[in-house]
């Protein structure tokens, strides 16, 4: 006699109450578990008999009653009085259901803190009023941001031990607020409490009558669950393809956006296209007809209108807004493994359901988030944070975190164990993402002071300028490589100066990325010297292209050769074909090398050897700045450097074919560029400062 309910009834309202996951973090012994015990007690959520059992256990051990025993239920923890692993417990207020996640405060258990905090919608950072901001306070605050949490409240605990001193509270509040804001977090409230005595938890404390902000429970009620990413582009990572019957079902959970029957989709990284034929579900029948659409958060199975090779690790997007495919990426990560992460380390990278073996190419901006003093280490030690560039053995579909939090997170596995993770700052071989989006979102969210007190670009520029002024061009390039930890980019148009620098980089084995902007209107001869350069130096120059939509719109508006019509039209063309792609080329670069010489034009006379480009957050470096044209010509001749054959035909400075002509002897070097315009305005915008983005 088994029971099957015949009539489904209205689910209790309970099932639809808002559920919020809160992680409680902070330095060891600052009172996390005590706060949780108190919260449960104050909300009447303790199981019957639990308090009595814990009091008895405390007495047996001959210690006073500790609220912390409630959560630290494991034997080892009770003996040592610290939380080893993350633990979860539930309670309710009148309006919300809460899951409280207790995270250990000891450094060696940071992996457990991260495990706990990564599941949370919001966080409470607890600070001991007596001890103040400590190592784990800072570390946890920093990691909350890196884990993507944005809802944070701070509690200043043990106020009873400092006699509810308002001065102490205000100075601690200023300190913690300034630190958190430095890492990109804005706390909702900073609440003075005594967890042990229940002050400031459910009701305001008499001792801190000077405080008029929310209680802890009021702050908790102000938090909200992390919303599903329904309004972003569709991202459906493929978990598996099932062929249990005649259907071929692609299964996965929608991480963002929505999908509907009839949608045109694209499978990344292959780029193959198909149309959604059905959304499958079980049980299905007359009463429960097949779904027509599904949204972020739902686990689904879909079938397609044609047989495509789709496999676990692929990412399904709408054709109109595909994800990027990357072979390399830059990420800010935390590292948990005992062995430090080094340049050349081999790891397994996971994004969504995709995975690839990978090599760490670059490590920079390393920080011990627990310390205030900067780090200059080229490795990321256990429990530290840093930025890395990774080369992937096979392409993965991904997005920068700023574009999509779900597909913009990377997990690193080392020796078969999850060892680190972080946010994707930029992807290489990307189809779309905007340079400005990537960089601004991340550079501004973590202030330099929080990155271990890195010196400002202005200071670095001044120092480099002093050191490099008397050096040869090769020495200058070597100096730059030594001083800049991150990515350095040379933008080349295969002009004479660019070729000299390319040769020097090759000759001295200096690690710099070569990028060219293919406007689509270059001379055939330029493509020839491009090929020749790659062959001679055994490199691949990465080309960036204008965005398709922008070009199409421009040509509709101004015509195919509209740039002859007005300077505004010419600048618009330069903007789309050169300046915007340049922004992408420089997205995550720390330094930018150009072949500019001051002699080239009146406009360039004011330029310097080294400058800080504040809008792009990088050092601009012009190693041939003080060279004469004759020096350049001698160098290429002496070293047999490949050059553009147009130079021999009277072309001095070579840009796009429609906008460059040969010059007569005696004319200024750049006279052949946009020859119909006035001297002094002949810049495309690449080398102009202070543009609005």
């Amino acid at each position: 006699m088994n029971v099957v309910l015949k009539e489904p009834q209205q689910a209790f309202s309970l099932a639809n109450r808002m559920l919020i996951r809160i992680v409680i973090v902070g330095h060891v012994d600052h009172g996390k578990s005590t706060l949780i015990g108190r919260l449960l007690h104050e909300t009447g959520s303790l199981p019957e008999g639990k308090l009595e059992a814990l009091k008895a256990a405390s007495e047996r051990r001959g210690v006073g009653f500790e609220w912390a025993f409630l959560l630290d239920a494991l034997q080892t923890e009770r003996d040592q009085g610290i939380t080893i692993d993350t633990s979860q417990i539930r309670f309710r207020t009148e309006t919300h259901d809460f899951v409280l996640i207790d995270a250990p405060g000891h450094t060696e258990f940071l992996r457990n803190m991260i495990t706990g905090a990564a599941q949370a919608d919001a966080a409470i950072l607890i600070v001991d009023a007596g001890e103040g901001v400590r190592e784990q306070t800072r570390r946890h605050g920093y990691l909350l941001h890196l884990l993507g949490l944005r809802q944070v409240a701070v509690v200043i605990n043990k106020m009873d031990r400092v006699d509810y001193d308002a001065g102490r509270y205000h100075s601690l509040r200023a300190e913690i607020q300034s630190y958190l804001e430095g890492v990109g977090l804005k706390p909702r409230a900073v609440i003075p409490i005594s967890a042990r005595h229940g002050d400031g938890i459910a009701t305001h404390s008499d001792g801190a009558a000077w405080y008029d902000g929310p209680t802890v429970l009021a702050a908790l009620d102000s938090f909200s669950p992390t919303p599903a990413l329904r309004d972003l582009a569709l991202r459906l990572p493929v978990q598996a393809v099932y062929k249990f019957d005649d259907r071929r079902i692609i299964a996965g959970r929608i991480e963002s956006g929505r999908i509907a029957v009839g949608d045109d989709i694209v499978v990344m990284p292959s780029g193959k296209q198909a149309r959604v034929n059905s959304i499958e579900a079980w049980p299905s029948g007359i009463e429960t007809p097949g779904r027509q659409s599904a949204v972020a958060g739902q686990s689904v199975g879909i079938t397609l209108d044609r047989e495509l090779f789709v496999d676990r690790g692929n990412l399904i997007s709408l054709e109109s807004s595909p994800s990027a495919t990357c072979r390399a990426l830059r990420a800010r990560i935390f590292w948990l493994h005992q062995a430090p992460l080094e340049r050349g380390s081999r790891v397994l990278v996971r994004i969504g359901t995709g995975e690839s073996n990978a090599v760490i190419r670059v490590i920079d901006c390393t920080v011990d988030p627990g310390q205030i003093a900067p780090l200059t280490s080229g490795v990321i030690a256990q429990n530290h944070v840093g930025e890395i560039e990774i080369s992937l053995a096979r392409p993965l579909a991904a997005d920068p975190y700023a574009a999509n939090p779900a597909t913009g997170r990377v997990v690193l596995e080392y020796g078969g164990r999850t060892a680190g993770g972080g946010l994707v700052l930029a992807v290489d071989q990307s189809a779309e993402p905007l340079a400005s989006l990537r960089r601004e979102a991340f550079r501004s969210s973590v202030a330099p002071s929080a990155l271990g007190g890195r010196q400002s670009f202005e200071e670095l520029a001044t120092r480099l300028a002093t050191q490099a002024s008397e050096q040869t061009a090769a020495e200058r390039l070597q100096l730059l490589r030594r001083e800049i930890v991150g990515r350095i980019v040379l933008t080349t148009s295969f002009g004479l100066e660019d070729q000299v620098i390319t040769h020097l980089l090759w000759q001295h084995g200096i690690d710099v990325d070569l990028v060219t902007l293919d406007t689509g209107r270059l001379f055939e001869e330029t493509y020839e010297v491009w090929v020749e350069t790659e062959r001679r130096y055994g490199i691949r120059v990465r080309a960036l292209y204008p965005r398709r939509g922008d070009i199409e719109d421009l040509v509709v508006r101004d015509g195919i050769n509209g740039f002859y019509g007005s300077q505004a039209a010419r600048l618009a063309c330069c903007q789309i074909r050169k300046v915007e792609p340049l922004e992408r080329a420089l997205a995550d670069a720390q330094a930018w090398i150009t072949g500019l010489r001051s002699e080239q034009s009146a406009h360039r006379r004011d330029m310097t050897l080294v400058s800080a480009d504040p809008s792009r957050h990088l050092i601009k470096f012009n190693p041939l700045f003080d060279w004469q044209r004759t020096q350049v010509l001698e160098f290429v001749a002496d070293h047999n450097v490949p050059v553009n054959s147009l130079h021999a035909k009277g072309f001095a400075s070579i840009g796009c074919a429609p906008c460059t002509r040969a010059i007569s002897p005696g004319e200024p070097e750049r006279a052949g560029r946009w020859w119909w315009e006035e001297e002094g305005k002949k810049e495309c915008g690449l080398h102009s400062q202070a543009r609005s983005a």
Partner: protein
Amino acid sequence: MDRLDELESESIFIFREAYARLRNIALLWSLGKDSNVMIWLARKAFFGRVPFPVMHVDTGKKFPEMYKFRERYAKEWQLRLLVEPCPPIEAVDRSLPPAARSAARKTEGLKLALAKHGFDGLIAGIRRDEEATRAKERVFSPRGAEGAWDVNDQPPEFWNHFNASPPRGAHLRVHPILHWTELDIWNYTRREQIPIIPLYLGRDGKRYRSLGDADITFPIPSNASSIDEIIRELDATKIPERSGRAMDHEAEDAFERLRATGYL
């Protein structure tokens, strides 16, 4: 999506990860309400079928209603049922208190079954809200070669990326309903009309809240004779779910010791 939809979706995701990333897995079917919900979720995840065996580690001391339930639904749900026996009580650690020792037979039975079938993953229906040590579990939880759980050295687990590479000879416990509560289980059971063993319903003022071996599981006082009434009762209660399971309460650390050596 309401809360039950979210729970369902997350569990389905976990099932699919386990099936994709492990080689040889089985679902542990204790016949209780939680493992019945698990089977239901597995059928949703895999569009009506459970593509791996369902294993009942049988102490031989279950309630007759439980055996009846097993026979009926193994057939109806087209499960690949494995029934594995447990060794006699004499084979179990003598230092454990009596009820815990009795329960530990299941751990021994599980070890034998693991060795016999070579599973690298076992899907288990434990929940965080049941008990404090379970609250510390990972979704993919590595076990040593002896089935032991090293709670002091659990790998990090975040953003739905699970550690799925157990060392040679070890296995993973996969916990698809770790984040559910007892109330969630009942709400879902009602919504989806999942069959249950009638022992959960009140008769003569008593019902079972949790089902284990007949000799070490006791009913609680209750008049809840339908799932609706159970839900109303649970909504108000402060008494822990496993209060009727004797082995949890014999000594302060009894259950923890059971778990560290491989109990669920």
